[in-house]
């Protein structure tokens, strides 16, 4: 086609201003749409079981949200900039395993490490592994221009296999004290992991709202060509975001390992579905350029509360998986219609 057809077509498209938003004010509240849902879940929980509204139970729910929350934080940043990374769920297990492998004593323990570095370097090493995984994804997606979905799917499988190979398929216990501290310490009566997670969400939210490069993520995800034409270094920033996602996943691995005192061979297995569900329920667009970290956080809390209420309500454990999936589907459908946007 020549361009002769385009002026009437563009005019027709642009000639219906505000057709998607009858109430401009409503859009601003979309990020808070899960807050009433969380409240309703609380009421249901209270009715179902007196144990729900206890301090221990609520702190338990929040603590369990931290590891998933950090993965969602990383995935949300990546999704906002218009990419996706499935391999985060393997990074959460692989990064601690490699870090521990490098620092654990070569003899004595059940798991023989290499003892190449002192024990205190376990955390920095773990984060570095996460960054390396993210950077590798960036190389595949941005340099080699392979499909991001398949590339990170391949990474997911490969990294899981690498973890199994290194750990010989066993759990790794006796982790160094420095490594386990963050996951099990309590600060001001609340697990340190909760404070850290909240701080990172606040930091991320502030970066997206108030930093030049944070704001650029929305531009890149919303219309990469326009971002490029406006002088934003699209590839470089996307690469950094992918690396940050890997670091956050590795950090989630540190918290998880500390929390349970060991790295299990299946750490993070199957989480990526929950991660995507939480992000999408929380209003992050899979097409990129839309969503807030606050929304993502409410998405995480919603999912965890549902699981908690079901457990307290005495749902047979054999049925929880079914109900979990069902609730994700229902939540997706609801958020599809409340936001008024297609989520493909």
């Amino acid at each position, binding site marked *: *086609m*020549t*361009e*002769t*057809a*385009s*002026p*009437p*077509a*563009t*005019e*027709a*498209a*642009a*000639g*219906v*201003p*505000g057709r*998607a*938003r009858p109430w*401009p004010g409503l*859009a601003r509240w979309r990020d808070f749409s899960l807050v009433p849902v969380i409240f309703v879940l609380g009421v249901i929980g209270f009715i179902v079981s007196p144990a729900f509204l206890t301090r221990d139970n609520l702190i338990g729910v929040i603590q369990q949200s931290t590891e998933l929350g950090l993965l969602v934080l990383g995935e949300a940043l990546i999704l906002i900039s218009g990419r996706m990374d499935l391999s985060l769920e393997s990074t959460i297990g692989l990064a601690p395993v490699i870090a521990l492998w490098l620092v654990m004593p070569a003899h004595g323990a059940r798991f023989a490490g290499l003892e190449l570095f002192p024990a205190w370097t376990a955390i920095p090493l773990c984060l570095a592994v996460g960054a390396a995984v993210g950077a590798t994804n960036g190389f595949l997606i941005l340099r080699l221009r392979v499909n991001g979905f398949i590339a990170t799917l391949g990474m997911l499988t490969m990294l899981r296999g690498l973890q199994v190979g290194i750990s010989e398929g066993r759990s790794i216990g006796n982790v160094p004290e420095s490594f386990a501290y963050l996951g099990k310490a309590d600060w001001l009566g609340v697990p340190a992991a909760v404070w850290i997670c909240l701080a990172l969400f606040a930091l991320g939210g502030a970066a997206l*709202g*108030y*930093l*030049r*490069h944070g*704001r*650029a993520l*929305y*531009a890149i995800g*919303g*219309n990469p*060509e*326009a*971002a*490029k*034409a*406006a*002088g*934003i*270094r699209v590839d470089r920033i996307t690469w950094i975001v992918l690396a940050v996602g890997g670091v956050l996943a590795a950090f989630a691995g540190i918290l998880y390992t500390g929390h349970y005192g060991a790295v299990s061979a299946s750490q993070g297995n199957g989480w990526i579905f929950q991660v995507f569900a939480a992000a999408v329920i929380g209003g992050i667009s899979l097409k990129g*350029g*839309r969503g807030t970290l606050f929304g993502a956080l409410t998405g995480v809390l919603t999912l965890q509360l549902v699981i908690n209420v079901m457990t307290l309500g005495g749902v047979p454990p054999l049925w929880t998986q079914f109900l979990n999936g069902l609730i994700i589907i229902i939540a997706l459908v609801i958020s599809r219609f409340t936001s008024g946007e297609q989520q493909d």
Partner: protein
Amino acid sequence: MASTGHTAPGPAGPAADPAVRATGIVKRYGSTLALDGVHLTVRPGEAHALVGRNGAGKSTLVSVLTGMVRPDGGTVAFGGAPAPGWGDTAAWQRKVACVYQKSMTVPELTVAENLYLNRFPGGRAIRWRTLRARARELLAEYGVAVDPADRIKDLGVEQRQFVEIARALSCGARLIVLDEPTARLDAGGIERLFGKLRGLRAQGVAFLFISHHLQEVYELCDTVTVFRDARHVLTAPVAGLPRTELVRAMTGEEPAAARPVRTAGPPAGEPVLRTEGLVLDGRFAPLDLTVRAGEVVGLAGATASGNTAIGETLAGLRTPGGGRITVRGRPVRTGSVPHAIEAGIGYVPEDRHRQGLIPGRSVAENATLTVADQLGPLGTVLPARTREFAHRMITSLDIRTTGPGQPVAGLSGGNQQKVVIARALAREPSVLVAVRPTNGVDVRSKEALLGVVREVADGGSGAVIVSDELDDLRVCDRVLAVFHGRVVAEFGSGWSDHELVAAMEGMAAGGSGPGGPRERYPGRPAGTDGTDSTDGTEGTAP
């Protein structure tokens, strides 16, 4: 309606039924009238040219004639019989086919498969031997020298077009629409294409030829129809039609007094933008361009002429093959948008939906994309400063919006374009490069937008307008006409419409540039010989 149409007896109809007769076709898109009661008749064996400037309605008519778009009114008849029902694709394919600039073949499949796609001979199972034999026969019948076992992607543009024509003819179509068929062919390819078309015409096949190159119209066609502003203006035999008459019909030029005479601007200052030997293989030949302070320079050129590529290269979106760009005497790193912006080149992209705007984000955010580093210390972006900046832009450009926070998708086309220009002006550039800045906006916004460009120049910067719209080019102090990647003519502010259009369409009638009317392709740059067949239209950056 096309589906229920009947043959209207035309005045002085020829003996045979026309290959196609369309009468009273009306098509509306929203409030825009794309076709206003146009008519067109093509006789069997005729080569009929359909010409008109962009937006004249040519493509819409082609869509109507090929059954892709349902007209709001009027009738279409093929060979005296009413057109097939709307949506009956197979029936339409037996009547008419269109060879688009963009190939409608499947590149990964063989020629034979493409020829018989979805109508393989035989039963359910594909009999490859028969298929190939039939394809060979078909190709031989129309004299197309292509091996049916070749994959389409391995063919050149020319051969692919032949395959598409052969496919159309094998469906039974006796009318072929050719949409800019020569845009990506070299001179030899065009000769061969024209030779083939002449041969097919002898067999009674009719062609509707859509081209920006009037020279080719004169070489190939018997009859020409001119559309302008969605209306039929002229149908006449080519032989007796002077070129000036044809160009006048296309431009509808009124007496010269109708054009507002630009007040003589301040004497041009020192050069703000200079290119030396800037070249992009396959797009434009080495270009030496100087834009002075206070000056608006137009780069006029039709689709695929290379003028858009020049604009994109100046903006850093394309990496030139060689040459230098300097802004106020300082060299600019080419092929990097951040460097171009830093050097003071503001850019208004061709298509605001594709490259200009982030639809879901607010007016303020879109307008401040290029100045995000000036809105707060240490890489922060302070909302208050962003809003203040956006407010300034909204006021100075008169953007109609409910406020800086309104999503830009909710604005009208003209106001969206103003946001794009605001973004380009946000850094107070030394030179503004605007590609088709009034694309798809209404008349009043057009004036406002062009006024802004003029003001930028009057304020001591330079401006380059890359466009094929004569209205855009009127604000320019100088206009360079680009044809096949080369500047073929230069005009001062006193140009007349038909001089400029003639130069843009490859007939350097009034231009001072190289290449007389007889030299058909003056200085086509190396590389446009149809080898890069991936993208069909200009401006599709990889």
